[in-house]
């Protein structure tokens, strides 16, 4: 479990750098409420971007993004409303992104950024 969460934290770190490299401002990380967690909250222009980060160390159990199910998407959308309700931020549009990070035992991490996954 510790190893997994360490990998997860590392993946979120990689994802944050990736977003910042694209000029997308990260607003908040690991926002939690009673119903779950949003890995990264960011803003790209006027759009609020909620990011789910999936990190894997191999493709043995499939592509990282494959583990995002329709149910998970529904929950992300719900969390977005919760976040907006608790913050004084007015965003004309909201987008859900998925960033998959593949970090094999050696070599640089492979980052794939899926925009607007709904």
């Amino acid at each position, binding site marked *: 479990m510790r190893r997994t969460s360490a990998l997860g934290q590392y993946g979120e770190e990689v994802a944050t750098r990736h977003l910042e490299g694209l000029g997308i401002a990260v607003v908040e990380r690991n926002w939690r409420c009673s119903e779950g967690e949003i890995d990264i909250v960011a803003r790209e222009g006027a759009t609020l971007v909620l990011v789910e980060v999936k990190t894997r160390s191999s493709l043995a159990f*499939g*592509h990282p*993004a*494959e583990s*995002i199910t329709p149910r998970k*998407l529904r929950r992300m959308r719900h969390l977005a409303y919760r976040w907006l309700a608790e913050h004084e931020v007015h965003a004309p549009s909201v987008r859900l992104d*998925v960033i998959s990070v593949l970090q094999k035992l050696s070599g640089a991490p492979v980052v794939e950024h*899926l*925009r*607007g*996954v709904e």
Partner: protein
Amino acid sequence: MGLAEVWGVVTTGIAGVMVKVEVDVAQGLPSVGVVGLAGASVTEARWRARSAIGNIGANWPAARITIGLSPADLPKGGTSLDLPIAVGVLAATSQVPRSSLRDSTFIGELGLDGSVRGVDGALAAAIAAHRHGVGSVFIAPANARQVHAIPGLRVRVIRDLAQLIEVLRGTDDAPSRRGDWSQFIDDGADPTSGASAHSVAEPEFDFSEIRGHPFARFALEVVAAGGHHCSMVGPPGVGKSMLASRLPTILPDLPLDIALEVTSLASLSGLWPTERGIVYRPLLQAPHHSSSSAAILGTSRGRQVYPGALSLAHQGVLFLDEAPEFSRPCLEGLRQPMESGVITIMRAAASATLPARFQLVLASNPCPCGLAVGRGDACTCSAMARRRYAERISGPLLDRIDVRMTVPKPSTADLTNPKQEASAEIRGRVLEARSRAEHRYRGEPWSLNGHVPGAALRQRWRPTDEAEALVRSLERSGASLRGTDRILRIAWSVADLAGADRPSAEHVASAMVLRGGHRGETT
């Protein structure tokens, strides 16, 4: 990421419909969606395709895949689209060159291991592709025997998806060959290829196995020559079924187009596994008298159409043993197809017109106890029971039957007779008689005496003067016009068999005997 188009075929009824399979691989969460009225087996194709592509070491993209099936408003079922869907994904992700798909059609089901499996409707599908004008058709080995029979079609047989990728990349040559009917027949006869490609469903019967029955033999020869419907009446155990089941053995081989039609029907019903190749001999269908009218006439479940026994007997023989025991809807349902040669199955969800040009053979006992033969002394049935039994075959049905023969108990002398003439010899004469009729009726929509309309028969083709006089005298003695038409039709068949140009008085006399009459009907 990309878009690819591949041709596939689905079957509706016995016809194939070309389907364009579009595969769009776009960025997004990994998912596979199928649009275009796909039935359950078609939406499942994505999982078969995904496993197959993964298991042969190719790459299934982690992307949003949309599979569109056009025409989008045609309901699609079956598993023949597995192959085009998999090929479409491979092409959309540039694992095979898109240009290699132009001019090709793919028909086949995928195993999870990537193997390509045969589908039941492959023949109808390949025919549709051929009509559509595609260059070549890719099929499974299991379908090869059937599909190779389509003349001029370029057929490529592939074992599995891995081989197909090699072929599309141009690094492997799948055996490609043009379909050829005659070559196919020769191949089928090749003893090294295991079971014959066109063995018939029934164990081979032969007329040589029948002792006695000289009259019934002659009658069936006439029936075969003219394509007449017939009925047989005789006590139980004299050999009515034995005789009827040998009628197909003296009918000529089916010509190519009809063989393909019959094979499509038989495949559709699941009666004829695709590995068995082409049905090129007329089939015998002998449904039990407890059969439902759906089983005899055909039915549909959802949108799938199931041909009945009368369609499976298309260009073959439909034999109803114990005919009076069949339900009324079954028997009456035969009347219209007997005239038109087709049956239209109409249900809420589907309607289809299936071919049904069968030759009907009815067999029945003379009465419920079966002993009312000769003087009928042994018969224990009341007159009323006998009459009710006979009346179960309605007048309008009986009216469509040309030859009505009585099959008597063979004598001891008959049974000790040496071996009788074999089916092949009789078939030779039937063939000659049929070619005479065909020549006579060239340019007409019919080619058999049994199918000639009465008016045309009376006006266009005349028997000899003597024969004509005999027919006149029949009419004077109260025979109906329709009855004498039947006698004339049979007389032409007798004359064709005898090699005569026109029926003589003798031929008409034979026809009168063959026309018979079981229960004192006037001809």
